[in-house]
């Protein structure tokens, strides 16, 4: 456990060191840059904003983590997020309920949208034995163009000079207190539920064990195909939820490129977190710190915010590669100690 934390911390520190070298080469002052980065994202007035920005990262990250840990390689978070966002938007355009009902209603619609999209991949596997690794990636493209069409034609806001829908009903806007958006509460709830399912429920136990060794689980009486379907639907719903919240907490409408890079960042977060639920939350927040901070960094120090993307990628590489390397490193240390004992 201690070693696990060490690997992650050392990985992040090494990545920052490498980032500093890049900045020095380019003639920037790395210390000031990093100071501005964290000041902008972690200062008392800013942290609530950073938290709100972490919501789609953590939710899509958990979607990828749960899928990877259970076996299915669901890489369809970008498409599932868009479909969730679209369904929530449509609901918000045509239906108006009191906020207490409206918000859960739209969130459920968003989850349905995501689950529908991952469900298509699951059915393709069930009927034609097509790998979800391929189909989810393909469905991302389809979702991308389908939602683009939807906001250009049937749900296009008249007279707008940009592909977008009108605003959803006010009752479906996530309440905001200062910089703190209530979507964070939804994220924390989702985290608690997912953690409990994965670590405490019978189903979660079966998912994890099947993810590690599907043949053993099958021989043990686990219904592999049923679990596959449930995991695909659940992880699709999580990505869809992220999409719904992006609309309801942010622009309150579906505008072009609303999905941004959230879902791919989420997949990356799942990889750094080694598909662990708690680590996904930690790295999700940390990536949000970097991304929000990059704006301030660019404003004050003239270091381009693209540098943060480099930093993110380096963190992923070092932590993932380091995880394997540290194991061998510690093992070798231990062996050398034994060797010395023997000679002495």
């Amino acid at each position, binding site marked *: 456990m201690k070693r696990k934390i060490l690997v992650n911390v050392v990985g992040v520190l090494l990545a920052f060191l490498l980032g500093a070298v890049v900045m020095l080469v380019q003639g920037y002052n790395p210390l000031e840059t990093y100071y501005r980065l964290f000041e902008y994202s972690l200062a008392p007035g800013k942290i609530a904003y950073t938290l709100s920005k972490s919501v789609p990262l953590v939710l899509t990250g958990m979607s990828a983590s749960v899928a990877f840990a259970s076996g299915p390689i669901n890489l369809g978070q970008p498409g599932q997020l868009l479909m969730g966002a679209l369904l929530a938007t449509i609901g918000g355009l045509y239906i108006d309920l009191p906020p207490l009902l409206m918000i859960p209603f739209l969130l459920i619609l968003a989850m349905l949208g995501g689950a529908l999209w991952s469900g298509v991949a699951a059915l393709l596997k069930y009927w034609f034995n097509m790998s979800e690794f391929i189909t989810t990636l393909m469905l991302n493209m389809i979702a991308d163009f389908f939602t683009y069409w939807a906001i250009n034609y049937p749900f296009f806001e008249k007279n707008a000079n940009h592909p977008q829908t009108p605003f959803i009903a006010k009752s479906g806007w996530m309440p905001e207190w200062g910089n703190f958006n209530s979507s964070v509460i939804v994220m924390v709830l989702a985290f608690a539920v997912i953690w409990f399912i994965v670590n*405490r*429920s*019978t*189903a979660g*136990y079966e998912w*994890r*064990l099947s993810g*590690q*060794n599907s*043949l*053993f*689980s*099958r*021989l*043990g*009486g*686990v*219904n592999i195909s049923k679990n596959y379907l449930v995991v695909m639907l659940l992880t699709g719903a999580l990505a869809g939820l992220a999409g719904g919240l992006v609309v309801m907490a942010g622009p309150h409408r579906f505008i072009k490129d609303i999905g941004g890079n959230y879902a791919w960042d989420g997949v990356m977060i799942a990889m750094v977190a080694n598909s662990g639920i708690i680590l996904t939350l930690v790295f999700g927040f940390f990536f949000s710190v970097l991304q929000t901070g990059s704006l301030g960094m660019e404003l004050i120090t003239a270091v381009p915010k693209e540098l943060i993307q480099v930093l993110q990628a380096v963190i992923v590489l070092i932590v993932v590669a380091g995880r394997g390397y540290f194991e*061998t490193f*510690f*093992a*070798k*240390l*231990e*062996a050398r100690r*034994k*060797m010395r004992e*023997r*000679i002495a």
Partner: protein
Amino acid sequence: MLASTASPEYIAQERIYPVADIIEMDRIVKIFPPSLVALDAVSVKFSKGEIHAIVGENGAGKSTLMKILYGMQPADSGEMLYNGKKVKFADPGEAILAGIGMVHQEIMLIPQYTVWENVVLGYEPVKFGGRLDVKKARELVKQKIDEFGFNLNPDAKVEDISVAARQKVEILKLLFRNVSVLIMDEPTSVLTPQEIPQLFGELKRLRDNGHTILFISHHLEEVLELSDRITVLRKGKKVGTIKTAEATKAGLAQMMVGREVIFDSIRKNQTAGEVLFETSALNYTDPDKRPRLIDVNIQVRAGEIVGVAGVEGNGQLELVNLIMGLIEPTGGSIKAVGEDITRKPILEKRKRVAFVPQDRANMGASIAANIAENVIMTHHRLDKRFTRWAGRILDFKQAYSFTDEIRKKFDVQMSSGEAVFKSLSGGNQQKVILGRELLLEAPFILLDQPTRGLDVGSIEYVHQRIIEMRAQKRGILMISADLEELFRLTDRIVVMHKGRVVADLVTEKTNVTEVGYLMLEGAAYEA
């Protein structure tokens, strides 16, 4: 037992020592990170022109020692003298050039090539311009075959010849490279009892030709029959080197395990009860339309151990997969405890069938999960005490106390239920799996090579548990490649050959020779 199959020419002759040492290994240490001491300052000398057996339990360091000699692994410390000169081989290629070759357990030949093509591969005689001199190559190989009296056709394709013949090709390959020291890593593990004397005869002829043969084995009869001297390793340390003429089986076993081991049948007389398990005309044809199982009928009664003997690949794997439901039969049915389970979901089968697979890491456990998580598999669906909320939530407290129960009942060496399964030794992994399956309390138990890869101590322990299950009136079907094990435990033995059950024998009324012959030929031999 094998001694009975040997013809007079194989009776060990007294040989004269000391002869010049060809290899001297001095205080070799090998540590596998993090802390597995595979070899702990092992010193051993091999003489020119002897068959030197290296015996020990699994994990004693036999193979590691030989791999270091052969240049496959570097030693962490220690020295090696070869023909009086200090040597260190960086890779097997260097060792072969120097005259030391190794025949591995898995045979590595190109199936589509002929015998002579395989032998010359990488060492081909060439004509002008670097073209292969086919005539000369074939002639050279033929010469070698005649020189050593191998019964081989140089033009046969390797895919068409028997495993025993392939092994000869491997040996021939090394002789073709003028190797004078041959290391054989458990060469008999792929052979049937009938093929073994022939191999031994050839090895002895090579020795009499001046070759040195280092023979790794954990079969004591073989070692006693073949070798001139024996070095025993235990847990990475050398216990001693003795002359075979002065060794006994019991003495060697004691050196190997550090205590006395009993070898006789351990069954008590007991009458079998009702039929617990039955396959009727079971047929399976694989996706390539090859029949793998043909009309297999096997019955197991309560309080009875039935063994399945057969050379690997004669339908045992398919039988296991059919019983467990990994594949579906093309015909016939499987009944367990009075119910047809042929096409039932696996969980339904598991209510009646406990299963110990041969492949621990892939079928028997999730090595990345912790021990408690491995222990509750299947139980978590069949036993209500492991779940709450109508089976939806796992009760981990119960899982850990169940792990503790298995630790005590099955004598497992482990730190805690939270440790990863991977951290257990092979013997302890098997005990955990055995514990999980036997405590399912299914009336029928399917054991697929339950002692494969275990050391003598663990094997003894597993055998005791199996006998206990028999006394509890459970029905046991045990597939094993180890005839000694089958004769020790079973009441009946069915022999499989090319997908058919060719014999159903009462263990007390048969013998190793008969079963071995049936395994090989598929028909009873003419006495």
